[in-house]
């Protein structure tokens, strides 16, 4: 088999702060195949967004990628000259951010911004570029795209703005899109629209996607594979069904059980005790140890991310074996 589209190997991104070194991403490895949707799930501070930024080379000081390799179509992105990286970014790898109000320039019209994105990577006439932008807007379901091209970002609603951001990300039919919580700020019906657009565009153009989120339910419907992050490390990865139906890491199991769902109505939710540790002051060994009921002396050493079942890896000495909690009826 040929190499996957993207291989992240032992990525380390550290933030050097006055209080010490914060290992936001600490030895993360995963790969994404062409056309695949990977869900990257974690709570705030787990390093999921910094992983996304690292791939695009967008980590700002005091953060720095200090180790590892990111191979995209066989090239190590970390060794690329900035000029070459800039060519890739936006054309072959694109990003969709959580808040489209932050990524769209409020004082420029949509057509100006979109055409700039087209012409930055391809030489064509302004008219052709404009046609391309109009088609892109129409594809993400924006009504009257010709008129909307002349509008400013503040004239769009939150959902429409996110669609514009998605349209821009798909302008060059990239090989990979990194989406960082793109629907978190949106309402349920609008979120479903955005998920539908993203899903369809990926299917049509064969684009691979990394969908970063804290919401297990969103990736459950969208992703093919799942990586769960905790305190800068991947604690579990595998096929979406395997991970969600038979979680091996106690943290993943706890997360799934703490999602309110109808079969446990009125009863107490299973909860993970304690809170996410500070990255500056991580517990020794497995970082989940202080919150884990299965922890033992052994857990003062760091477990490896190892295969617990075919194509299903977890970083735990005492993995869950069978699904202990009730599974929701189909």
């Amino acid at each position, binding site marked *: 088999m040929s190499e996957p589209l993207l291989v992240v190997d032992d990525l380390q991104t550290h933030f050097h702060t006055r209080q010490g070194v914060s290992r936001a991403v600490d030895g993360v490895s995963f790969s994404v195949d062409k056309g695949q949707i990977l869900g990257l799930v974690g*709570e705030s501070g787990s390093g999921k967004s910094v992983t996304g930024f690292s791939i695009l080379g967008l980590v700002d000081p005091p953060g720095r990628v200090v180790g590892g390799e990111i191979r995209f179509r066989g090239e190590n992105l970390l060794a690329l000259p900035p000029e070459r990286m800039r060519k890739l970014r936006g054309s072959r790898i694109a990003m969709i951010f959580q808040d489209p109000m932050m990524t769209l320039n409020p004082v420029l019209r949509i057509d100006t911004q979109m055409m700039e994105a087209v012409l930055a990577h391809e030489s064509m006439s302004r008219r052709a570029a404009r046609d391309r932008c109009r088609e892109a807007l129409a594809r993400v379901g924006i009504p009257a795209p010709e008129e909307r091209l002349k509008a400013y970002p503040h004239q769009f609603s939150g959902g429409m703005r996110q669609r514009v951001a998605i349209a821009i990300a798909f302008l060059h039919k990239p090989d990979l899109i990194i989406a960082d919580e793109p629907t978190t700020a949106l309402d*349920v*019906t*609008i979120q*479903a629209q955005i998920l539908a657009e993203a899903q369809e565009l990926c299917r049509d153009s064969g684009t691979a996607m990394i969908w970063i989120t804290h919401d297990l*339910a969103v990736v459950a*419907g969208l992703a093919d594979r799942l990586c769960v992050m905790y305190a800068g490390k991947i604690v579990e990865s595998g096929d979406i069904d395997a991970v969600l139906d038979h979680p091996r890491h106690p943290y993943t199991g706890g997360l799934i059980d703490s999602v309110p769902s109808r079969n446990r*109505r*009125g009863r107490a939710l299973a909860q993970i005790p304690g809170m996410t540790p500070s990255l500056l002051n991580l517990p020794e060994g497995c970082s989940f140890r202080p919150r884990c009921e299965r922890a033992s002396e052994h857990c003062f050493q760091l477990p490896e991310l190892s295969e617990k079942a075919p194509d299903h890896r977890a970083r735990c000495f005492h993995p869950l074996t069978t699904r202990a909690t009730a599974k929701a009826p189909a």
Partner: protein
Amino acid sequence: MNTPARLLIDETETSRVPILAFRNLGKRFVKPLDLAARIASRLGAGYREEVVHAVDDVSLSIHEGEVVGLVGESGCGKSTLGRMVAGILEPSSGELYYRDKAISKMNPGERREWALDVQMIFQDPYASLNPRLRVRDIVGEAPRVHGMVKARELTDYVAEMLRRVGLDPGFMRRYPHQFSGGQRQRIGIARALAVKPRFLVCDEAVAALDVSIQAQVLNLFMRLREELGLTYLFISHDLGVVEHLSDRVVIMYLGRIVEVARTEALFDSPNHPYTRALLAEVPRIDARRRRFAALKGEIPSPLNPPPGCHFHPRCPHAMDRCREAAPPLREIAPGRWSACFLNDEPGNSHV
């Protein structure tokens, strides 16, 4: 047909007096014209004041010990309604009743009792705590001001409140910034509990928290309900949370209530097309690799809502009638209310 406060309650519960009820409650926000616009309109420029009907003619009764979930998307007026119930906003029309007594007809003593009995918990645990006060003062201020505890017993009282919400009383002298989001939300809950309320309005109280912390706070809400016999109006956009916690669910769309039902009934067989669309689109952890089929259209601006039924431009079943008149909220089955003309159509009994 209904005594004012007895609107919208389960048939089985008509004998009980609701703890809180409101009838035809409305809230308008008016943006007055500035000086230039006033002068221009006097000269015939035709500027008008902008009026938003944030909440438009809603009625409901809530019983002691009940958990009512209030669901809707942004701009539907759910927070405005919650704030009116908690006494933070003055209604523009309609009447609010506490223990069968109209708020507008209460004497100062009764008003004070209502104000203390109904407390609110806010969404943002960062913005809702005064950063310059210690936890002891945040939690202890209200009971001290209202003479519920003596000054020298205050420390013990605050310690008890903190223990009740699962915080170490040793944290009493700390400031809010020294706590995590989940702990701050617990401080907010302790502050509300300190005046011994009977009714809590929780406005998106877990929306800002991480999943594992959210479960802790939801469990706390359920435990407090059992220990103290509290009644909740639980406002949320998260149907999963509401389904887990509520006895009854109220769905709002653009300022109006479109459906009220017991939780099981609502989730098993939603009646209103909006409710059905909402339920169909909730991401669920057991639905894998699904094809998201989206409801068309945007939520209209509350500044300029569509005529008739507010939902008709997005509704797959809209008829001519829906464009002309707003369907009233009618009882379609015992304890089950829906505002949709489809229920009048013969042979259309999808209840």
